[in-house]
């Protein structure tokens, strides 16, 4: 049954610990980096970092008279607001730029916290095995059965909505996914001889975990990080839809899409612009993650 576990986790992370004789890689096409994804990701990070410099207006500056103005290229649009304005006359482009910062912060905090915990639990559980492993894995299963949105909702209503609440909620959910996949990897790495060799040389458990296990598990961890950035942004958007997202006045993509949903016909850009931004970013991170997984896939290292 364990063998299947690995395959399921592989499904999530996609990194297969297949047997060695699998197909060698054709040269050329896959070696190419996913340039498109990389460009999108770097643009996103730059925009988020330099938000105050490049945003034409402050994200919360209202001017009610020119509310719901369409993007510049449409009739009635003005170059003052390239991507139009929202119900309170705030500049959509500026909110998008500042929203990038919010989304990245939430993703960074949640992934580092959640990922970090997951990594540690995964390594300890995978390496020690035995009762520790089964107890930890039962806790992981319990967390996985807990509904994502519900935990975030409950935390939002009890701790109060905000960046930190969403980050905590996502951390509570993500660590289980990381732990499970990392454990699978650790089991695979532990089976390799060099770990036994290290034990023979009298290395302490801690040293083995740090020196031998972690580097080998790191690439899967990296892949998981990229794949889950999309997950975080989508959870934030769904929470905003349910009214437990990041509260005004902080601009966030999820909230913009949620608020814009009742203007689909009359002011399409309110939800289409942030929606497209979310889609683009999630797509970029996922494709980058997929490429990273194939590139780091152990199978590909030897011919």
């Amino acid at each position, binding site marked *: 049954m364990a063998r299947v576990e690995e395959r399921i986790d592989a499904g999530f992370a996609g990194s297969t610990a297949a047997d060695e004789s699998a*197909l060698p*890689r*054709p040269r050329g096409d896959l070696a190419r980096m996913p340039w498109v994804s990389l460009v999108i990701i770097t643009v996103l990070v730059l925009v988020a970092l330099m938000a105050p410099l490049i945003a034409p207006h402050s994200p919360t500056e209202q001017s009610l008279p020119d509310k719901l103005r369409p993007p510049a290229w449409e009739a009635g649009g003005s170059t003052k607001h390239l991507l139009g304005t929202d119900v309170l006359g705030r500049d959509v482009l500026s909110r998008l730029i500042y929203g990038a910062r919010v989304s990245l912060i939430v993703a960074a905090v949640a992934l580092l916290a959640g990922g970090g915990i997951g990594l540690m639990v995964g390594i300890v559980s995978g390496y020690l095995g035995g009762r520790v492993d089964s107890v930890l894995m039962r806790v992981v299963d319990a967390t996985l059965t807990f509904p994502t949105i519900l935990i975030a909702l409950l935390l939002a209503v009890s701790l109060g909505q905000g960046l930190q609440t969403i980050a905590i909620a996502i951390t509570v959910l993500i660590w289980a996914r990381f732990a499970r996949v990392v454990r699978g990897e650790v089991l695979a790495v532990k089976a390799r001889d060099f770990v036994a060799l290290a034990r023979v040389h009298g290395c302490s458990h801690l040293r083995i975990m740090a020196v031998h296990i972690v580097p080998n598990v790191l690439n899967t961890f990296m892949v998981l990080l990229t794949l889950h950035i999309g997950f975080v942004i989508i959870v934030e958007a769904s929470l905003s839809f349910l009214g437990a997202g990041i509260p005004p006045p902080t601009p966030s993509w999820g909230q913009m899409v949620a608020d814009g949903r009742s203007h689909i016909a009359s002011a399409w850009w309110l939800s289409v612009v942030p929606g497209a931004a979310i889609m683009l970013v999630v797509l970029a991170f996922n494709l980058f993650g997929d490429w990273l997984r194939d590139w780091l896939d152990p199978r590909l290292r030897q*011919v």
Partner: protein
Amino acid sequence: MAIAAPVVLDVRGLRAYLYTRWGVVRAVDGVSFALREGETLGLVGESGCGKTMTGLSLVRLLPEPAGRIVEGQILLEGEDLVTKSESEMRHVRGRRVSMILQDPQTSLNPVFTIGDQIVEALRLHHADGERALAVRAEEALRRVKVAAPEQRMRAYPHQMSGGMKQRVVGAIAVAGEPRVLIADEPTTALDVTIQLQYLALLKELQARTRLAMLFITHDFGIVARMCDRVAVMYAGRIVETGPTRTLFRSPRHPYTEALMASVPRMEGSVTRLPSIEGQPPPLHALPAGCRFAPRCAYVDDRCRREYPPIMPVGPAHEAACWRVEPSPSR
């Protein structure tokens, strides 16, 4: 061995390369040999010398999309397999050329019964009904000496021992009465006693169907018992071929010589077995000249510059080495 038996498979200047991220792997770099009906040719060499790839090239099953046959001919009873289309090759595989793989554990589909997998092979060659095919399958199992074939038909691969599974694979391989059987180290995964039984079984199958067999192995004991003739491969090329007895007694190529020296002898005292220093060259970065040069005791600068063509050195005995004086070929 009657020399007059017709050539079933004639491989001429076969080159099969693998295109990978680290450059072109010249797995099979100009291999030529002939295989006669009822004869067993041993293809011998260290692992990584390209012998498995040679076998796979014959049935056009090089790993996609990396592997490609770039040059040479594979004449099966006069027809060149290299130029055949995939659908044409489908009619060749199993009917005229078949193959037994190394690891029985993974050669059978774990989720289908043994019966299903044999019948599937038979259905391609006989237009009988299911009932008749099942009978044929049981007959095939009996022929490879599998006990109680009726129960075995319904069993799953993981319920059978390695030896039994390899017999089933054998049964499948000969189901279509092929003209050529390629056995890629079929017994390496088996323990010794089962090994001998399996080899005897192959011999018996060959005798009954007159099929030509290409036996790929690195085990000289098996070569001595099974093969009529031997071809020694090194770094993607055949360096020496000849009758088994001749090569064992008087190898002419330094590599074959070294290999023969490292085989433990029953008679005489055995001190330290001599081994060959160094490593075979990586197939994607092959040196110019003779590829064994770096490890050859008799190397001179000509060996390093120029690759020696294969030259006759005795009756049906050839070697590719500058040291070899040409002797009257047959």
